[in-house]
């Protein structure tokens, strides 16, 4: 008899069947990879196990007893600890990182009632140490970037006394450095007999960790693989077709440069950056957490101003003072944390799939200024088809989409206009490999613009890019796959570039 048995689990969201009689068994002390295309139902399953959602049907047995957590607190008490997918569900702005790390302790009442700065700092440091991460304990959680937030969530979960640990895309915005650390920690926990349910779209993660892979599709568990896991087979089981293979690394482009950067200095004292991106080319910048990827893109989009340097777009000088000017110059930018940088709150005007896509294009699509006619819906339907966004339609609230599908919608926003230069920061967070391939294909299809992608996952970079730079301490290092990867592996973020 295993640790956990999920039988015939059903969950509806209105017309959508998120879970359609899904069944799953977990043994004690194993790491199980839960694979599935975007919208397959993984997070829904997780949310039910975590007590965040109530199932409409089916049974769960945990440790031999019926398991029906009424709320997250219940689940935690029973020993089921979860790291949720979206980074906006982790902590509160206004409280320190230390508080965020201790929040579950506060909630279960396992700290002293009265708190002193010192005691909090100590306990928090201990939590971090257990996961062997390094975060600025005293800074405001609200100022943390996506990656750091995710580290907080993981450290918290690892520290909790769990018998089942669920991680929903924990590495979505981590770099390989942190990923490596996470692997080590999880292996240690497994050795202690903890069971881990691990969801990720990064094959590297799964290959490094999984004893078993369970594949979901359309709300059902469709297949299962045991070590040695054949990931090609797993992936095709997951997306229902073999993965289009793509070997375009180091194609050389002769087109004229869309973007050219000379002597760009991101922060005082950083080395100058020179590079250019040719027409139709997809260039990836990779590097460790805090290395400067986002900074580079943000600077190119006029969010941060550079210390020095010159930039041209299509040969014309380009020095945007704000995003509006950048967009006017034909440059588009998708930020790394979609909740902070792209999405509107639920129920708000423009928070539908269509509204999310149309936001930057309203002026072009509705020159009269009046929002009548269904141009918006049209464009949205097009994008939904093109990127295979799984949703009930253009009017569906963005919050009703699965994480990956939300991310696809954000990308659709910037594909909708014909921009000269696409700046995509961590564009594939939580996007499944199939969709990723489709998106890249789509990006390539429009050969008249150029694309610059920032990603903290070298494998992803290799997969999507024609040319790759690594970035370290805000400076570019020439890319040669092996030593660059090792360079990243040896890169450790210090206080200086975390804050």
């Amino acid at each position, binding site marked *: 008899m295993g640790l956990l048995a999920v039988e015939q689990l059903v969950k509806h969201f209105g017309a959508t069947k998120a879970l*359609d009689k899904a069944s799953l068994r977990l043994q004690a002390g194993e790491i199980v990879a839960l694979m599935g295309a975007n919208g397959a139902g993984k997070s829904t399953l997780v949310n039910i196990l975590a007590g965040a959602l109530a199932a409409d049907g089916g049974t769960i047995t945990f440790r031999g007893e019926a398991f029906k957590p009424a709320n997250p607190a219940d689940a935690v008490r029973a020993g089921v600890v979860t790291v949720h997918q979206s980074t906006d569900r982790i902590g509160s702005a206004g409280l320190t990182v230390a508080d965020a790390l201790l929040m579950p302790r506060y909630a279960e009442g396992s700290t002293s009632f009265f708190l002193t700065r010192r005691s909090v700092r100590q306990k928090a440091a201990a939590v971090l140490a257990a996961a062997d991460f390094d975060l600025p304990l005293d800074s405001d959680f609200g100022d943390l970037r996506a990656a750091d937030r995710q580290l907080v969530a993981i450290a918290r979960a690892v520290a909790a006394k769990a018998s089942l640990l669920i991680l929903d895309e924990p590495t979505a915005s981590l770099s390989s450095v942190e990923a490596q650390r996470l692997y080590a920690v999880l292996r240690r926990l497994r050795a202690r007999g903890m069971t881990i349910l691990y969801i990720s779209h990064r094959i590297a993660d799964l290959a490094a960790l999984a004893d078993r892979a369970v594949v979901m599709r359309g709300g059902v568990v*469709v297949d299962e693989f045991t070590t040695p896991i054949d990931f090609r087979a797993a992936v095709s089981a997951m997306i229902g077709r073999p993965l289009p293979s793509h070997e375009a690394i180091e194609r050389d482009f002769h087109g004229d440069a869309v973007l050219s950067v000379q002597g760009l200095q991101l922060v005082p004292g950083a080395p100058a950056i020179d590079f250019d991106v040719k027409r139709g080319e997809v260039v990836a910048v990779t590097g460790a957490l805090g290395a400067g990827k986002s900074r580079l893109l943000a600077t190119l989009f006029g969010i941060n101003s550079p210390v020095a340097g010159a930039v041209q777009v299509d040969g014309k000088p380009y020095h945007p003072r704000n995003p509006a000017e950048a967009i006017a110059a034909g440059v588009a930018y998708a930020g790394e944390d979609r909740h902070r940088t792209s999405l509107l709150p639920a*129920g708000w005007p423009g928070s539908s799939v269509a*509204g999310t896509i149309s936001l930057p294009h309203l002026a072009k699509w509705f020159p009269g*200024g009046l929002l009548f006619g269904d141009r918006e819906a049209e464009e949205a339907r097009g994008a939904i088809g093109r990127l295979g966004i799984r949703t009930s339609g253009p009017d569906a609230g963005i919050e009703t989409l699965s994480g990956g599908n939300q991310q696809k919608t954000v990308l659709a*926003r910037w594909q909708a206009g014909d921009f000269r230069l696409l700046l995509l920061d961590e564009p594939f967070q939580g996007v499944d490999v199939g969709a990723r391939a489709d998106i890249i294909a789509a990006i390539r299809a429009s050969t008249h613009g150029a694309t610059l992608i920032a990603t903290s996952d070298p494998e992803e970079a290799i997969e999507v890019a024609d040319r790759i730079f690594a970035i370290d301490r805000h400076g570019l290092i020439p890319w040669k796959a092996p030593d660059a990867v090792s360079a990243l592996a040896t890169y450790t973020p210090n206080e200086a570039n975390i804050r």
Partner: protein
Amino acid sequence: MTAPSPAASTPQFKADRLSARHVFAFLRKGGIIVLLAAMLFGFSLAQPAFSNLVNQMSILQSVSVVAILGTAVTLTLAVGGFDLSIGATAASSVMAAAYAMIVWQFNVWLTVPFVVGFGIAVGLFNGFLIVKVRVPDLLATLATMFLLSGLQLIPSAGRSISAGLILPDGSKAAGAFDPRFLEIGRSGLFGFLPLPVVLMALIAVLIYVLTEHTRFGRLLFATGGNELAARLSGAPTNRLRLTAYALSGALASIGGVIIAARVGRGDVSTGGSLMMDAVAAALIGFAVLDKRRPNVLGAVIGAIFVGVLLNGLTMLNTPYYTQDFVKGVVLVGALSLTYGLTRPGR
């Protein structure tokens, strides 16, 4: 190990769910409207005079100012702000109008633009504090509120402003209210449609279209929903917030013009509690039509809702001291209808 899916129980279980949802959805969307209709019907039965046109009009007239102010509040709520100075702006606009006519002997054509200009200036001041000085909205508009409620007293040394006002320097003001100005509050179209009601209707429609059906409106809401996201998609969020506050100020001053024209003097005791009524209308607007967000139509209906209730109760000669209570009870009822009936599946 794919499980075969026996689709036996699911559909019927789904059917119940749907029908239930429809009733709920109707009550939710309908909540306040239904109650409103019920009140209109009930009052007409109890007191025939209630339903006659004149009375209906005087109800609308009595809510016109609050409705306009509610619309203004809605605008600032849309950009994620909150204009606490709305009442004070209207009140000081009353004084400004009276001062302009009685001391400077302006006529209506000078007075109205002057007052509206004043309102816009106040709005821009709020906007400046919020956008440039980066003071949080509530705080900035609170400060402005105090500033204005003090400012309005100074020119007349705390006295109401009416013809023959003795100025602080002892001289006697020579002007008087321009009769055409009083018309704004006291005359009507076709003999039955009071001008304030016309103004209210115009403004409501205008701002409704502006917020719900224009690019500008969408960007306002985007700014209020997620300022960063809006800015990153190229929206001039600062200018948008500034504009929203300027508009809010302008509307408030129009409300002030109507009050001044009704009262026929610059009444020092015109005051802050206008703000609460305006906010109330704007907030009740959230519930109307189950929008759960600031919306102009809701704000106006919210104002009318309260106006009908009070007018009806007065007609039935219910003691004034029970009216607030009834107002509260009805409000709680309406809100429970709207919010209490949960959306299934969430």
